[in-house]
């Protein structure tokens, strides 16, 4: 659709397209007409840029050039066609039509409809940058750009969603990231045919094959994590209106690590990482081990513990397996309720959880105290991980372990453990096995798996992520 000579025709075209209440149009003496959506535009900006420019006009002969040169706005472009005019309007642009001109001027007059950069509530930090991504796409890019001022930091923009027309950006550092992978992701995202992309979760599902419960990419709100990943050769996907950013590839070890690991003393972090790894196995195996010890393999319980365990079981109506399963589920209900409920009712849930379910259930003889302890240690250990997908994956495998232990005791648990490890090893993301660098082993990367070397000794980028492995030159030895 070409732009008509008459201003009124163009305005009518827009009105036909969408005559909603927030569409504001104005025609000034049949010569200049403009249209914008007041819901996404800022009135102040329009008055500043447009009305000031019009009022200062002196030469009315060549209105188009005059206006184009006199609008004090850095984000100004020219439209030839009326096809994607509504995309501009919905993005907060003001469209200016001029009499006898087949071109329209588009001026950015966007209103900031976001909450601003605030601290992340899902990924808290003790030490380190506290800002987090927001729903505003340029802000998100800005948060990354201000950390990496390299001109090689590139973003490929794509427009996905037939109705939502959401901007999706693939970010990477040219020269570090594997460009084949960037191309692969780009073509995969380009193929997405859907009406709307609401959140990064949508993109994620189009990229991942649903053959495992484990997350194959990191979802984060933290710019520092995104930047350190970019510098290691990873690729990020940002979606407009979503504060969550995808980092690819997400390997198992990335979920054990935290960006904070590099802001604290190396030896202390080694201990923390060890703790996280222990927590992983505790939350995975403890209920299953408890069930197999109590129902099949009593002979390996220490003598002194045996009698007290047997005394606790006395008078409990359910079998041990059912007892554990019930309480594992009860905890999940509590957690889910706590997540979904508004913060005001949160304290009620904790009172119900702690007092009624913990204390009273034991007193009523429904459950033995040791089961409460088992479920508590299991649930606390699972919260060590920040990635919600990882937590869910571990939770699902925990139930599999419990079922295995119910059927065959310790033998069942170990059979399930074999299957678990085989599953974990066979996952691949972007052609990289999930357990890299543990297996297949990249010995050079082992400085930074559980034991973290001082940063000055981490001279190389991971070989499996990038060909350009040189991270730093030689640093002089010295200390205070």
């Amino acid at each position, binding site marked *: 659709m070409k732009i008509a000579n008459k201003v009124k025709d163009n305005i009518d075209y827009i009105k036909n397209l969408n005559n909603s209440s927030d569409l504001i149009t104005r025609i000034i003496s049949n010569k200049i007409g403009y249209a914008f959506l007041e819901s996404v535009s800022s009135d102040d900006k329009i008055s500043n840029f447009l009305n000031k420019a019009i009022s200062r006009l002196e030469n009315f002969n060549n209105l188009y050039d005059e206006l184009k040169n006199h609008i004090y706005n850095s984000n100004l472009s020219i439209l030839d066609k009326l096809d994607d005019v509504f995309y501009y309007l919905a993005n907060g642009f003001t469209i200016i039509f001029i009499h006898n001109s087949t071109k329209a001027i588009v001026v950015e007059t966007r209103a900031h409809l976001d909450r601003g950069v605030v601290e992340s509530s899902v990924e808290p930090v003790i030490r380190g940058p506290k800002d987090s991504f927001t729903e505003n796409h340029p802000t998100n890019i800005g948060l990354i750009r201000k950390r990496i001022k390299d001109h090689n930091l590139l973003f490929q923009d794509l427009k996905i969603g037939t109705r939502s027309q959401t901007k999706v950006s693939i970010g990477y550092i040219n020269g570090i990231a594997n460009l084949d992978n960037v191309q692969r992701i780009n073509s995969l995202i380009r193929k997405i045919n859907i009406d709307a992309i609401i959140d990064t979760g949508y993109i994620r599902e189009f990229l991942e094959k649903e053959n495992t419960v484990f997350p194959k990419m990191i979802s984060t709100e933290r710019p520092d994590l995104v930047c350190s990943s970019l510098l290691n050769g990873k690729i990020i996907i940002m979606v407009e209106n979503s504060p969550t950013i995808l980092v690819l590839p997400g390997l198992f070890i990335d979920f054990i690590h935290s960006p904070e690991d590099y802001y604290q003393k190396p030896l202390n972090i080694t201990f923390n990482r060890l703790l996280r790894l222990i927590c992983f196995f505790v939350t995975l195996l403890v209920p299953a081990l408890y069930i197999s010890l109590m*129902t099949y393999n009593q002979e390996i319980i220490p*003598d002194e513990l045996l009698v007290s365990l047997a005394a606790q*079981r006395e008078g409990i109506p359910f079998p041990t397996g059912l007892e554990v399963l019930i309480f594992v589920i009860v905890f999940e209900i509590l957690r889910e309720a706590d997540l979904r409920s508004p913060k005001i009712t949160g304290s009620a849930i904790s009172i119900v959880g702690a007092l009624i379910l913990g204390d009273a259930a034991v007193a009523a003889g429904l459950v033995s105290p040791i089961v409460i302890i088992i479920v508590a240690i299991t649930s606390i250990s699972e919260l060590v991980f920040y990635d919600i997908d990882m937590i869910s994956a571990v939770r699902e495998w925990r139930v599999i372990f419990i079922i295995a232990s119910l059927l*065959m005791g310790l033998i069942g648990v170990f059979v399930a453990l074999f299957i678990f490890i085989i599953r974990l090893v066979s996952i691949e993301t972007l052609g990289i096995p999930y357990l890299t660098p543990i297996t297949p082993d990249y010995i050079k990367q082992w400085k930074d798996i559980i034991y973290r070397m001082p940063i000055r000794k981490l001279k190389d980028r991971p070989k499996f992520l990038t060909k350009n492995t040189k991270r730093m030159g030689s640093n002089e030895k010295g200390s205070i």
Partner: protein
Amino acid sequence: MKKVLFSLILSFILTGCFNYNELNDYAIVTSLAIDYKKDNYMVSLLISNSSKESNAEKKNIIYSGKGKTIYEALKDIDLISPKKIYLGHLSSVIISESSAKKGLYDTFELLLEDPQISKNFYIALAKDTEALEILKADTALTNFPSQYIAKNIESSNNITGSIDSIDFNSLLHQLVDEKNNPVINGFKLVKNNNKKYIKLDTLGIFDNDKLIGWASEDESKGINIINNKVDKMYSSLKCTNDNIIINIDQLKSTLTVKNNTTYINITGRSNITEKTCNINKNKIKELTNNKIKKYVNKAIILGQNNQIDLFGIKNIYYQKYHNKYKNIKNWNRYYQKNKFSVYVNVDIKNNLKNNIERIANEKNY
């Protein structure tokens, strides 16, 4: 792939919870006593009471059953007990004198067969009393009273040197080997403040699997020293009219055989802990060595009198002089004629003066 997965899942489910047992359905047996009376075995089980309201008196329950064999006796108990008898945590077995005289093989048959039983429980004899009485003795000082017999054996070790804590596994090896004659400690009942307690006494000596008698305290010490079963012990020495107490540790004996003579070499170190008389250090050393030599000689004489090999000399012949070993027909006779040469060297590490004197000296500084 689907077939493999299907058969995997099936193999899980088809086991049908084999061997499934809730812990509270078990009667946890911690000690087992075997008596032999009038051609009948009487087996008694000490069971930990795992009910919630367990007061001090009811912490243990004893069930007894009778039968021609131990299995029958155990099944007799199964009829009494409301819970399934669980022998997986058995920590001690007490065998009465009469049953030990009949032979250990008969009693051990079942303990060996049962897959549930771990083979590392302690074995002890009941001396001058029935085995059941040992289980009935009063218990104190332990939170977990049904295990007190095992605890008693563990804690008594390395005090006087007359105690040899022997577990089922090593006893079995000695029995099967046939080149060793086992020794097992006996429990005695003692009265202390109107309560009956158990106390480890001397060793019972066995000819193969049959009890033939009891060693005296000195003899027991000698046997244990030669067999390297004592690491630490105390000994009291007599000087003029007072006593000196020395603590010996790192006791080590080595046996070598040459020309029908067995050389026993004993080394160790000792500390003087109590000394109330003035006596030369060398003199104390001489007294210590003589004392140990006395124990050892007594043990040797005991073995020779009963014609049994208490120290595994047969084993040394078997390993080093195999031809000679094969030619010896009547080993017990040969053992009786065997000569022994004992050499003891226990050093005194410190030379304590009389403690009172020492404090007086310190004041002078």
